[in-house]
């Protein structure tokens, strides 16, 4: 049984997506989707436990042996990200039914669940597969689903945002495809482990550089690394709140995973850096993203957009971790990848609750909410503290490792910039908190978010605190993933 889990992880949501249409009522579809997500989460837990106890798992699709057939490989890194993505999906979908109520007409809701599951399939597929062309396929599956999810937003701008992302995302995917096309031409293989062995023997270094360049740019577009982030703010601002929550917590993280997997695991960081200055570029872009995006976030009046820019800044942190170039730096990136998913998930879910109650995500809508929606706002405050990096929250742990990595490499300037960035995040987050707890003119009575949204929010908030105190899972898994990627041969 356990040996079939890698493929089941992906196939289960893939099959569940069309199966949704068996049901008629949106509510039953939602329940069915919840079940599917829960099962998917269960599989990822089983995989994670298996990998950490026994070791990596490999699965040959259709029984074709590795270099010829498609191989699914689950090692410590992929099981870690699978766990994250499926956990986020399972929590977020809990809140979906309530949150969609006022945002999407009932007859469109089935489409949301189908797209959600397809998007999840794509994201899990990217992580699980060990074949670069298969990665492209899943990248497209998740991207297409994402475009449609964004287009479901109730404002008309949602269509424009989706179209914008469609163009940019397609360019990114094309870059990626061209890159792997070059690699295939040079090595004659698409299997990741096979590829990493054959790349060493390639003699046309310039062609190799071109191939790497295409792949890196393509992924950077999908992960919204500054200056390729243009699509993200609109997409996050206009998608249905619950879709934003899921995308913010998982989609960019998976792109980052893909980058780490290819850069460290397949190409080898040294090989790439000998041809292209990727780590320096990541360090610089990361630093600029941290500062610039944080400053822009401060100027936003729409909280969703504010958090979207904050996400771009946080992706900057992860890029800095990669740019530092040490094992510790990579570990910091992986930790932040995990922790930030919970932070942003909680923040966006809190905003989703506000949208549910007030119909707006403008910052003025938050005035006095601390008294009308005490639990939602308490969750928002805790998640904000985690984003700032206050001790005993998850955000502190990732910041700790990032700073430690920079100090270890003697990059004191980076230390300073990283921390100034999180100082700026205090400014924009506190704008919300302050408004929420100031007295509003109209004395509206208590009007808390629906219970399921609250539960989902608080699961994420508690996860933030839990992973800030008990770091064994995150630190252990990220340490072993970073160590295998940098020191050991890929897989």
């Amino acid at each position, binding site marked *: 049984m356990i040996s079939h889990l890698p493929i089941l992880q992906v196939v289960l949501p893939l099959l569940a997506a069309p199966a949704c249409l068996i049901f008629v009522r949106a509510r039953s579809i939602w329940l069915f989707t919840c079940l599917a997500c829960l099962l998917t989460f269960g599989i990822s837990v089983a995989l994670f436990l298996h990998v950490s106890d026994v070791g990596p798992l490999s699965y040959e699709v259709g029984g074709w042996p590795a270099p010829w057939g498609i191989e699914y490989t689950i090692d410590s890194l992929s099981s870690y990200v699978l766990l994250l993505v499926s956990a986020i999906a399972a929590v977020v979908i809990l809140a979906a039914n309530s949150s969609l109520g006022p945002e999407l007409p009932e007859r469109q809701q089935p489409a949301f669940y189908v797209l959600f599951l397809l998007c999840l399939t794509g994201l899990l597929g990217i992580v699980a597969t060990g074949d670069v062309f298969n990665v492209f396929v899943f990248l497209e599956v998740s991207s297409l689903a994402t475009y449609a999810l964004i287009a479901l937003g109730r404002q008309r701008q949602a269509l424009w945002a989706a179209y914008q992302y469609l163009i940019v995302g397609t360019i990114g995917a094309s870059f990626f495809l061209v890159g792997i096309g070059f690699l295939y031409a040079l090595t004659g293989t698409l299997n990741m482990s096979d590829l990493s062995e054959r790349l060493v023997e390639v003699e046309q270094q310039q062609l190799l550089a071109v191939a790497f360049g295409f792949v890196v740019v393509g992924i950077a577009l999908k992960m919204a690394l500054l200056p390729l982030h243009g699509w993200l703010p609109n997409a996050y601002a206009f998608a249905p709140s619950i879709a934003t929550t899921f995308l913010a917590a998982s989609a960019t993280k998976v792109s980052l995973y893909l980058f780490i997997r290819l850069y460290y695991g397949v190409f080898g960081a040294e090989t790439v850096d000998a041809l292209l200055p990727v780590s320096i570029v990541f360090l610089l872009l990361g630093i600029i993203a941290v500062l610039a995006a944080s400053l822009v976030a401060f100027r936003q009046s729409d909280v969703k957009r504010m958090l979207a820019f904050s996400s771009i800044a946080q992706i900057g942190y992860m890029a800095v971790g990669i740019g530092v170039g040490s094992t510790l730096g990579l570990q910091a990136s992986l930790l932040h990848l995990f922790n930030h998913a919970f932070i942003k998930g909680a923040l966006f879910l809190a905003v989703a609750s506000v949208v549910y109650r007030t119909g707006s995500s403008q910052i003025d809508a938050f005035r006095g909410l601390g008294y009308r929606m005490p639990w939602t706002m308490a969750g928002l405050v805790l998640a904000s*503290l985690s984003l*700032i*990096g*206050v*001790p*005993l929250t998850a955000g502190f*742990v990732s*910041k*700790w490792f990032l*700073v*430690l990595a920079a*100090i*270890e490499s003697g990059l*004191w300037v980076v*230390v*300073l910039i990283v*921390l*100034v960035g*999180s*100082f700026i995040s*205090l*400014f924009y987050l*506190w704008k919300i908190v*302050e408004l929420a707890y*100031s*007295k509003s003119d109209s004395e509206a009575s208590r009007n808390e978010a629906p219970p399921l949204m609250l539960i989902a929010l608080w699961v994420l908030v508690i996860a933030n605190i839990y992973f*800030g*105190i008990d*770091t064994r899972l995150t*630190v252990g898994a990220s340490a072993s993933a970073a160590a295998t990627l940098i020191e050991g041969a890929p897989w």
Partner: protein
Amino acid sequence: MVILAETLMLAAVLLPLLAVVGILLFRRYPNIREAVSLVTAAVLFSVVLLLYLQVIGGAAVRADYLTILPGLSLSLEVRPLGLLFALIASLLWFVTILYAIGYMRAHEEENQTRFYAFFAFALAAVMGLALSENLFTLFIFYELITLGTYPLVTHAGSEKALKGGRSYLRFLLGTSIVFFLPAMIGTWFYAGTLSFTPGGVFGEEVPPLALSILLLLFVFGVGKAAVMPFHRWLPAAMVAPTPVSALLHAVAVVKAGVFTLLMVCIYLFGANTLSSLATIDYLLYLIAFGILMASIIAMQQDNLKARLAYSTVSQLGYISLGALLASSSSIAGSALHIAMHAFGKITLFFCAGAILVASHKTCVSELRGLGRQMPVTMAAFFVGSLSIIGLPPTGGMWSKWYLLLGTLERDQLVLMVVLLISSLLNIAYLLPIGVKAFFPGEPAVASVEVKEAPLPSLIAIVFTSVVCVVLFLWPQLLPFFGDFTQGIVDAPR
């Protein structure tokens, strides 16, 4: 014995949290609600006192609770300095609650439940900070103090209060994120531990440049110590109700800052390492400059609370200076000044609040002749002033004595002169207030009927001012008097 001591130690942190629950439960019954605060404060003080009696024999009490990362744990340990701080804070909590009952009711403040609840929460964080075993634990409680006191600073909810709160939060969280955090992580990187260890944690192999950078980061990162130019939050925080200014900004918050600096200097760097750093002199002069500047600014303030705030900035500089000088006398002086300044300054703040409640006056220039109407308050103000200046017969004399001795031990004559000049400035901006209240010179403008502050507040004022005098006569009442430095300064590495 040890188990009892460990329980007491944990109880010291948890008791105020229990009070938070009690305060929230009895939010509809103001009398019971305040009784909860008072009783908890009294119990807390006895607990800390018991703890003191337990460890006076020298038994080491420590306990680990949570391990965040390997080697990085949430742990508590009883140390002389921490115990002194905990004793003062818990005693003054009781006194301040007493004062606050009078003040808050006379002033008809809103949201009193929230006020008392966050007050208790902040006290829990102070207790945790005082009993921290390592820098990491201390850092957590340090941040909790900031977050717990923010709602107190913005209590009024007005635009001015929010603005003050914003700058409070930005300065305190900002310095701790940008400077304190990397200093802590750097210490962890170079020393491999964050445990407070007598004699310091850094080995011979750590480059002096790195140590200098770390020290600089610590001095500026501990924003609560209000080292210039990061002192601006303190005057900004004066928008808080007076009891908050009194306890939190004369005792708990600012003393948490200088306490942190003292712990860092003594237990992380160690006196020997510290005095061997080439850059230490520049830091000392910088702080000395801050002491003088703050005194000069204080002289120009007409708002009484603002003047007291800048006076605090200046006096905190004394403590930081003593910590960085790191001679046995200067450290003793710093520790004593934590206590003496606490009692002196809280008296002054209590008086300022009493004047506000009774006569609605906030400016120094309006206080002339007030001694006729509020003799007890103004007399207490005079005693408090003496203690801040460091004149007999008040306790403040002892701490300044040791601090001056400390500058001599390190051959820092310039610093000694600075301290003396600053004391003269203290006289110039504090003493006239008390004197002119009783001897207005020209006949004072006959104001409307002004009476003394409410009785509970008056009791608190008299108590703290009497303590100022008592500590002059019997300074050995303070735990470990003359003994703070035992096993700290000259400990083998």
